[in-house]
């Protein structure tokens, strides 16, 4: 899974969000490192919807513009949890090899 996808799923893990909300949230949780462009975001959302990992939550009209909110499906939650566990396991191995002494203490 690419980092942008992981971030989008993570942004939706706390609840439904619309496109611009996802962009700002991803920027925040990545401490400004990942800035999603609209083209990338909607290509990813389209694919995640096709794979049934996200779904449309609701639609609103704000300032005469359409806002479509997306949310994780149960399958999306499982995929995100599995990927997070994989990244965590990899990070643990990396840290333990970088600091074998520190790893032994814990």
């Amino acid at each position, binding site marked *: 899974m690419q980092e942008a996808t992981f971030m989008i799923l993570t942004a939706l893990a706390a609840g439904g969000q619309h496109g611009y909300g996802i*962009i700002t949230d991803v920027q925040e949780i990545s401490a400004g490192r990942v800035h999603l*462009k*609209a083209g*990338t975001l909607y290509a990813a959302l389209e694919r*995640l919807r096709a794979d049934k990992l996200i779904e449309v939550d609701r639609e609103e009209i704000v300032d005469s*513009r359409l*806002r479509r909110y997306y949310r994780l499906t149960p*399958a999306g939650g499982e995929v995100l949890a599995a990927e997070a566990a994989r990244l965590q396991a990899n990070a643990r191995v990396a840290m333990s090899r970088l600091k074998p002494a520190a790893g032994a203490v814990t």
Partner: protein
Amino acid sequence: MSDSADLERRYRRLLACYPHAFRHEHEQEILAVLMAGADEGQQRPRLGEAANLIKHALWMRLGLSRGGIMINETTFPISVDRPSRTLMTAFGAGRKAPRVTMSSSTVDVRMGWAFHATIPRESVASARPLNRGELRGPFRISVLRGVNYWPRTALVNGAGTGLVEITLNRSKWVWLGPLRAPMRRLIVSAEDQSGLVAELNPSSQRSPGAGDPSS
């Protein structure tokens, strides 16, 4: 005309690059996202933003859009013998390995620029191993390799062995190079013939998350 109206008009022009169906579904919300991200007084789309929209629109039109996501995908390489590999490389179809990629919702079959089909999994009626001797019509020619088409049947192979016949429950439009053609039956040469058959047969499919009784 105000700055924001100018900007919106320019964004709309860029979004026109997307396929009609995608635009119909998403134009209004993408426009809302683009306008929300614009600076005060901005009149023109930022270069990076414009390039990104055009890139994804082209990918979508060419059927290459994967959104950069590799989730729950299984890939089965299409087997290619040595002479075919040389030939395919010479024709520019061998740069990306020919393959069948399966996600939870689609079966994607690709042989370079020469063949591309994206088939919804529910459209696959059956899959079975096929012996070379069972091929009929022009497909009986044993040296046939690459992409061959006979009404509603496509033979996409790089070898004469490991053939798998995939039958669809109705015709789907597929890409034969730059041309579109209807296809009801697809025959591919798979490196893992039995694995591909098992994965394709509807009885082996399970919904995401199923099969975990521990929860």
